[in-house]
């Protein structure tokens, strides 16, 4: 087969390392492109009192243009409401503001909106676009990402609390590693929740090549970090040095190492402090319970559990390699949530403590045992990362509703086909060796993850379930890699319950009650997907992006072009993400700040000062107002990275408040309005269209947070992973940000209005103009329902009064005489449906969908 040989030859020839960007070229790129430079420090030009206006007006004046006059009050008010809170202004606000549209009233309105809880709901959606927020993994079966929705709530809270943006970014990169995490009033750890954003990457079910899957996933993770926070297309350097920017492949793989050294876990919102008083008391109660059992039981087996000989692990056989065991110090293992307690446990224990019939177990020897931390606590215990050199892996464990899995090349979705053999479900209170056959993955790197609540495993197939059974526990003694199929010898299990044990004596029952009470005092904690540190490992450059062809080592560090040359010490424990966060915020500060203010500008004006909001690199657009961009960036930093401050700056400017009407005098000088001689006309976002309908109909339920709402699923199709639940047409009146984000089943109406598919950072949504939008507004059951509801909510009175009420709700203004005339014409021959029909027509007009 000559062709095959030729193909192999050409493949080999093509596999040489692509030519690198030479140092002088690299430096030239860095020097010549504005985005790599420090922030400029230009004073606002004289003239306008507001610095934003001063910069804009100076440019206009240079082009011989003047700014537009202020927009009519109702236009400005509607614009402000949708921009800050994503909802139409209520009639009372409209009346008040139209009666007094003064500057002072405008400032009062701005402050009220910035302080309202709906502010976070609107602004969070912008951020969710950047981190491709989704609640499922996509691909074939669209598996759930357990508890992903909690992240959405985290973002809303953070924005409402105006968490400084640098802290917000720090939490996203390394919220799990902060020495003093941010906590809410209940003591919940806020910071860790941000790290869920790493895990919204699409994941493949049963990829043939886990290493390639890892490379694709990390590519997406680095891509999102680079675009969302820095406005850089770092992931372009995956297969070769960046074609245009001062980013080399080794920069990309330096960042790859941080992700590769980190792991997926379900992290607690409320971490357990194993040294704190409540847990110490619980541990003491567990010990007291064990003592009570020993005292009460006559059987000889009970005291053997204190036998030192039993506690000693059997010596390893020739060839056995102990990856991790109870003999290793606690720090050798990776604990999440401290659910496995401060130290291995030996002796009797109860995984739950119902006083009437406490379940009682004893294991042969010492085990890391999640039962000692109480049934409500979830925890994860994991080994260091190791290279698979032996075919067999033996893990000695007991437990209930728990799981042990081998995570090869960072691949968590271990299911059949292909990967099913990489996990063992543990549902046996006797300790057994669980044996894994790793033959297909010899030579790959892996770690063993022990999860005491398997319903929370990423690979759990039950995509409908939202709440999980509490009573799960897992005890693990030793993880042994071995050339032997047979597991190592181990002590026999002890008989349980003790002979003759029927009804526990009072002393045991009392101890069980005390134990239950002690557990009750422990903080209950929900979990969400998060990052956790694993073994620190550096990546190698993948030659031409091929994860199986390793080039130069790429020690973990920040981008070279931003001075991130100092590598982490080789012996640094963990991933080093905290150091990455600090380096990014310190050395990348100009980019981080520019990206932040530019995004705000984009959302308020329809186009960023840099149009390509996710790419400030060489292929991105140049800033239209570079001095203003940098002034705003400095201003944001100077004001403690307050996002509310940035928005306040912009919406109080005359530039924001000006009229949007096209002007003949500017047609030649500024045809695309790059100089902002007027405000831009903008279409409402998908969420705002739906929320506005709920708002005007009176259906809006202002409840904050919580489980996502399902909408009705399309009928007549059969697709894998399609949810079986159907929701109400109006989504219970909840705002659109609370609708379930199932990657493969996004709400069709929101999609028609350009809700993006969550696969990559989308800082600037498409604004399309397609028939599906009109058809949805004209014929969708939801729209009809809300218009009917709205008609019922109109105040009693004559047609004029009702028309006024309708117009105030829909457009924040009174109808003109012409409009009244047209509306009356419909009312005149509309019959019983006249009012719903009229309101429906208002919804279909362009005025409803657009901000002028």
């Amino acid at each position: 087969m000559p062709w095959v040989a030729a193909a192999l030859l050409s493949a080999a020839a093509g596999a040489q390392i692509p030519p690198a960007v030479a140092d002088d070229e690299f430096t030239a790129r860095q020097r010549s492109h504005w985005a790599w430079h420090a922030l400029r420090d230009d004073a606002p030009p004289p003239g306008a009192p507001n610095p934003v206006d001063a910069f804009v007006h100076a440019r206009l004046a240079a082009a011989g243009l003047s700014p537009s006059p202020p927009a009519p009050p109702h236009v400005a008010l509607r614009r402000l409401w949708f921009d800050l809170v994503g909802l139409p202004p209520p009639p009372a606000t409209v009346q008040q503001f139209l009666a007094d549209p003064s500057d002072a009233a405008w400032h009062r309105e701005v402050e009220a909106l910035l302080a309202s809880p709906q502010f976070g709901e609107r602004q969070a959606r912008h951020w969710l676009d950047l981190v491709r927020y989704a609640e499922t993994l996509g691909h074939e079966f669209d598996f759930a990402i357990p508890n992903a929705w909690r992240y959405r709530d985290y973002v809303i809270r953070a924005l409402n609390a105006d968490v400084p943006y640098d802290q917000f970014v720090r939490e996203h990169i390394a919220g799990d590693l902060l020495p003093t995490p941010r906590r809410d009033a209940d003591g919940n750890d806020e910071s860790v929740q941000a790290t869920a954003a790493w895990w919204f990457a699409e994941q493949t079910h049963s990829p043939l090549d886990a290493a390639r899957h890892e490379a694709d996933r990390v590519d997406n993770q680095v891509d999102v970090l680079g675009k969302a926070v820095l406005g850089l297309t770092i992931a372009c350097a995956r297969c070769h040095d960046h074609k245009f920017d001062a980013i080399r492949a080794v920069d990309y793989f330096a960042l790859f190492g941080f992700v590769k050294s980190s792991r997926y876990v379900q992290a607690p919102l409320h971490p357990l402090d194993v040294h704190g008083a409540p847990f110490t008391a619980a541990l003491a109660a567990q010990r007291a319970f064990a003592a009570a059992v020993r005292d009460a039981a006559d059987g000889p087996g009970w005291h053997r559990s204190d036998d030192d000989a039993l506690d000693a692990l059997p010596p390893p056989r020739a060839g056995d390699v102990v990856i991790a065991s109870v003999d290793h110090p606690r720090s050798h293992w990776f604990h999440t949530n401290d659910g496995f307690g401060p130290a291995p446990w030996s002796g009797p224990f109860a995984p739950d403590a119902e006083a009437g019939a406490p379940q009682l177990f004893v294991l042969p020897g010492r085990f890391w045992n999640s039962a000692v931390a109480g049934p409500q606590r979830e925890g994860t215990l994991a080994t260091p990362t190791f290279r698979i050199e032996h075919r067999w892996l033996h893990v000695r464990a007991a437990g209930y509703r728990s799981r042990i899995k081998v995570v090869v090349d960072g691949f968590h979705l271990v299911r059949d086909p292909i990967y099913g053999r990489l996990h063992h479900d543990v549902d046996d209170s006797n300790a057994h060796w669980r044996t894994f056959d790793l033959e297909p993955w010899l030579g790959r790197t892996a770690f063993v993850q022990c999860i005491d609540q398997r319903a929370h495993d990423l690979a759990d197939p039950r995509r409908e379930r939202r709440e999980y059974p509490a009573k799960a526990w897992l005890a693990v003694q030793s993880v042994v890699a071995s050339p032997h199929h047979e597991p190592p010898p181990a002590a026999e299990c002890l008989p349980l319950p003790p002979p003759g044990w029927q009804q526990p004596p009072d002393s045991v029952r009392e101890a069980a009650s005390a134990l239950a009470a002690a557990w009750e005092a422990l903080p209950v904690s929900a979990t969400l997907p998060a990052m956790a540190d694993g073994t620190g490992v550096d990546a190698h450059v993948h030659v031409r992006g091929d994860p199986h062809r390793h080039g130069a080592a790429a020690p973990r560090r920040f981008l070279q072009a931003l001075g991130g040359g100092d590598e982490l010490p080789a012996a640094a424990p963990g991933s080093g993400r905290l150091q990455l966060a600090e380096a990014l915020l310190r050395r990348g500060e100009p980019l981080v700040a520019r990206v932040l203010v530019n995004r705000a500008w984009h959302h308020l004006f329809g186009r960023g000062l840099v149009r390509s909001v996710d790419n400030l690199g060489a292929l991105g657009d140049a800033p239209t107002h570079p001095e203003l961009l940098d002034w705003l960036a400095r201003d944001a930093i100077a004001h403690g990275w307050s996002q509310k401050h940035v928005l306040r700056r912009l919406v109080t400017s005359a530039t924001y408040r000006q009229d949007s009407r096209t002007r003949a005098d500017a047609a030649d000088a500024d045809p695309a309005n790059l100089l902002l001689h007027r405000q831009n006309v903008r279409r409402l976002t998908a969420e705002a269209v739906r929320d506005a309908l709920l708002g005007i109909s009176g259906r809006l339920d202002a409840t904050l947070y919580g489980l996502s709402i399902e909408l009705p699923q399309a009928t007549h199709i059969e697709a894998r992973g399609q949810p079986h639940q159907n929701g109400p047409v109006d989504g219970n009146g909840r705002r659109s940000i609370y609708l379930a984000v199932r990657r493969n089943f996004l709400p069709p109406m929101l999609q028609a209005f350009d809700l993006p598919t969550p696969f990559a950072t989308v800082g600037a949504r498409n604004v399309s103009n397609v028939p599906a939008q009109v058809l949805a507004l004209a014929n969708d059951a939801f729209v009809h329902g809300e218009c009917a509801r709205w008609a019922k909510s109109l105040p009693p009175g004559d047609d004029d009064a009702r028309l006024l009420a309708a117009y105030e709700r829909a457009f924040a203004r009174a109808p003109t005489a012409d409009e009244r005339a047209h509306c009356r014409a419909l009312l005149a021959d509309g019959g019983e449906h006249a009012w719903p029909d009229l309101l429906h027509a208002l919804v279909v007009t362009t005025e409803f969908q657009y901000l002028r």
Partner: protein
Amino acid sequence: MTRTDPLPPTRRDFLARTSRGLAALPFASLALGADRGALLRHHAPRARAVIFLYMDGGPSCQDLFDHKPRLIAENGKPFGLPKEPTQFRDEGNTLGPCATFQQHGSSGQWISDLLPHLATQADRLCVVRSMRADFSEHTNANYFLHTGHGLQGRPSLGAWVGHGLGCDTTQLPAFVVLNGGLVPPGGIDNFHSGFLPAHVQGSVFQMRGDAVANITPREADPARQRRKQTLVQALDALQVERGDDPALAAARSNHELAFRMQAAVPELVGLAGESPTLQQLYGLEDEYEPTRIFGRQCLLARRLVERGVRFVELTCPNTGHDRWDQHSNLRDGLRDNCRAVDRPIAALLADLAARGLLDETIVLWGGEFGRTPFSQGSSGRDHNPFGFTMWLAGGGFRAGHSHGATDDYGYKAVVDPVTIHDLHATILWQLGIDHERFTFRFGGRDLRLTDVYGTVQKSLLA
């Protein structure tokens, strides 16, 4: 060439279509679909439309087109070549075809007895027997087949074509997906516009219920919707007096397109004008429901192309065998799937040819990959992206032609292999587009349907 902004809308009557008039027309005049953008033209096109018969799940080519005597001879014996890893890792022995093969037509194309109707059209087919794909998993392979990239988020072939060529009708979108009932793994993102403007995404027409989401007015009395429309237009016109804006003007014309579409779709899907004989030919009277569904899809495909829709994709009806994904029970699955699509496809080819539409319409048949020549379990075949068959007809592809070959077992493409990127490049070429110059700027890169790959396969072309 990079384009980001569609041209302003233009009203235009249907293009009068004749069998041969197309290439002679100045191409720019074809662009005047609703607001569907200008026509991209790198060279004179050979075809103006595409019908993609998408065989979701990976049809077993060794049982349909890829005739391998050795596979028959060694049925049940250990497989004679090294095996690549498979998805289910349950590999058995060599598995012979579950049907017999014959040569058909003057071209002598090998087609199995599972496709007796298609066999009558053998001389129209350009059979590519050496396809290769990059992925063994359905979803990746589906995205790859549709978008040239294995992950979610890229524009589908139909969206690229719609973006490049616009649409010849003011009443329908450029890219229509006729959904037989099954949505392939990966979901509707297989038909998505990705980073291209949203109006070029596949508009999904259903075969049951309403053909298009929200196409049916809810008002029992049509006069009510008319009154609403009148009011909307009047109110919008008053707004114009207060100062217009290009975005608002575009919204108003989109509004009109939507209502034209609302009027056009019932006529389109009504089939009233199609003769009973023709409907029978398509299988609309067949006793097997999936045949009736797919027959309707094929007939609608012709009607859409006739009306100027640029790209029509058909997905399969559910025959109860999990698509063409026969990991087990190969014989029954193939029998029923073939029964569903065989008659309708043959009728579509004959009908297009009779109307002179086949010359200007590319018909593409195939799945995301093929299947292994060795068994999975006792009665199935696993996924095989290394060698499989797709075929094309019309649109200037060589009729009655066989291209390339797999090895003696039908396992891997070994003679003149054709990649998915090659296939995309060649289809674009026939539409007048040079795939290397057809780019869109997104996220800092000029992206192509064919990434950095793909070669136009001139030997497939007449």
